[in-house]
C-alpha cells in the first residue's frame, strides 16, 4: 500500500462522513447548540440527524443533555474533549493529504 493511500485509510472514518463532519465542525466552534439549530444548519431530517448524533455520542465525541427551558424540552449538544481532539487530528490529516496531492 502506498503512503498516500495509507494516509487516506488512517483518516477517522466516523468523521469522514460529510453530515457527521458538518455536525462536528458546527459544534467545534460553539460551547453548545440545540437539536433545532443543527437541524436547520445541516438540512438533515430529524431521523437522520438523530442517527448521526447517536453514532457520535457512542464514540464519545458528542455529549447530549436533555433539559427544559420553562416547559419546553430542549436537547443540548456539545463536543467532548475527545471529539475536539478527533476533529483537530482529522483536520491536520486532511491538510497533510491535500499538501501531498498538491506537491
Amino acid at each position, binding site marked *: 500500500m502506498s503512503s498516500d493511500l495509507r494516509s487516506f485509510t488512517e483518516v477517522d472514518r466516523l468523521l469522514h462522513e460529510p453530515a457527521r463532519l458538518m455536525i462536528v465542525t*458546527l459544534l467545534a466552534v*460553539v460551547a453548545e*447548540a440545540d437539536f433545532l439549530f443543527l437541524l436547520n444548519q445541516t438540512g438533515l431530517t430529524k431521523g437522520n440527524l*438523530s442517527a448521526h448524533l447517536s453514532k457520535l455520542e457512542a464514540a464519545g465525541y458528542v455529549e*447530549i443533555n436533555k433539559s427544559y427551558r420553562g416547559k*419546553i424540552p430542549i436537547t443540548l449538544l456539545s463536543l467532548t474533549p475527545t471529539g475536539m481532539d478527533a476533529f483537530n487530528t482529522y483536520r491536520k490529516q486532511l491538510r497533510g493529504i491535500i499538501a501531498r496531492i498538491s506537491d
Partner: protein
Amino acid sequence: MEDHLQDWANRPQRYWYVDGLVEIGAGAVILILGLFFAISGLIKDDGFRGAFTTIGQIIIVIGLPILARVIVARLKERITYPRTGYIAYRRQGLGQRIRAILLTIGVAAAIGVVVYLIENWMNLRWLPVVIGLSAGLLILIIAFRVGLPRYYLLAGYTLAIGVITGLLSLAEPYNSGVFFSGLGVGWLVSGAVTLVRYLRSTTPADQSLDAGRPG
C-alpha cells in the same frame, strides 16, 4: 474541503446576525447618540451644556450598549431560538480577553488621537468622514470574515453618511448629530428589513420535534 469546513465553522458566527436584532440594537444606540448631540446643540453654551454632554456621552457610549446587548439576548430567546435553534458561544479564554481589552483601549486611544489631530490641524467637519471611513472598514472586515452580504451595503452606507455629513459643513454638535442619526436610522432600517424577512421565512418549531431527538 477546507473551504467547506471554514464555511461551516463560520455559520455559528453568522447566526448571531441572522435575525437583524443586532443591527436594530446597534442602530438604536447610534440613533440615540445622534439625537443626544442634536439636543445638546439646543442647550445654551454654558457650564451646564458641558456637564450635560460629558455625562450623557458616558451613559450613552458605555451604558446603552450594555443595555442593548441584554435586550437583544432576551429578544433572541423569544424570537430566534424557538424558530431556528439555540447556540451558546464559547467563552473567551483569559489571554483572548486581555487581548480584546488591550485592543479596545488601543482603538479608543487611536480615536482620541485622530479627533485631536482633526480638531487642531483640520476642520471638525471632516470628523464624520474619518469615523465613517474607519467604521466602514471595520464593517467591511466583519462582512468578509463572517460572509454577510448585507454588511457590504452597510459599510458603503456608513462611509456615504460620513462623506455627506462632511460635505454639509454643519457646525458642531449638529455635525455629529446628523452623522450619528443618519447612521442609526440606516442600521435600524437594515435590521428591521432583515427581521421581517427572517420572521416571514421561519416559524416557531413544533415542540414535538424533541421526540425525534436522540437520548
